């Protein structure tokens, strides 16, 4: 099983859980500079995305911002 809970929904990764948060964003095709990430309730700053390893079962909140205000 390679499962992460992303924004409330379980998501399977048949080829293996993405190694890092940066890998996950790449897989989801979202730009890091528009994303705020929390893992298990803890904020992860953008400069640590590629150093942040993901493990099975983590709860990940990704907030992606679009422009306009």
């Amino acid at each position, binding site marked *: 099983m390679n499962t992460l809970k992303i924004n409330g929904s379980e998501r399977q990764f048949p080829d293996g859980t993405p190694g890092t948060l940066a890998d996950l964003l790449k897989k989801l095709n979202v730009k890091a500079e528009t994303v705020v990430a*929390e893992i298990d309730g803890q904020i992860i700053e953008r400069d640590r995305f590629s150093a942040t390893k993901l493990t099975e079962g983590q709860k990940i*909140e990704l*907030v992606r911002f*679009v422009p*306009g*205000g």
Partner: protein
Amino acid sequence: MPDINKKLKQATVAIAGLGGLGSTVAMALARANIGRLIIADFDKVEISNLNRQQYFLDQVGQEKVAALTANLLRINPELKITGYQQKLTEENIPKLFADADVIAECFDKADQKQMIVQTVLAKMEKAVIVSASGLAGYGSSNQILTRRISKRLILVGDNQSGIDTGLPLTAPRVWIAASQQANAIIEILIDEIIK
């Protein structure tokens, strides 16, 4: 109603960015008789702002902080306002907004929204941030939602309608998002923050 006015009177709300969202959040909170606003923007009022922002034609060219302060005080002369006519950064946000119970993220650019939300969550201890993403275009009023992402982050918007997709910004839809931001701010101040 129990002490709602008294609670709001004790509250301090910071507003980052004084465009369509920020100037409208400020108007709503001033009319709701909030105690103090901290408002920040580096820009001047432009004629193109008047389609959705809370300024007047004779204010074009004025600094936004000064123009909005004047407009807010015409509504509510008791309102305390601290204004910063400058660009907000990762470094200065924790200092300038240190007194804020709640921070309204009202920027235009996606990377700036990211910057302030990350800064508030990582570098500040208590303040709740109410951010907005996805409010361009027209119609679909009910696609704009208020969601509690986590204890200190509330997100308003439909999460997808950005101006990067070519959609225009229209006053009613921007105001729906801004009003949801102001409404969420009032709710959290009354129910959770001000004892």
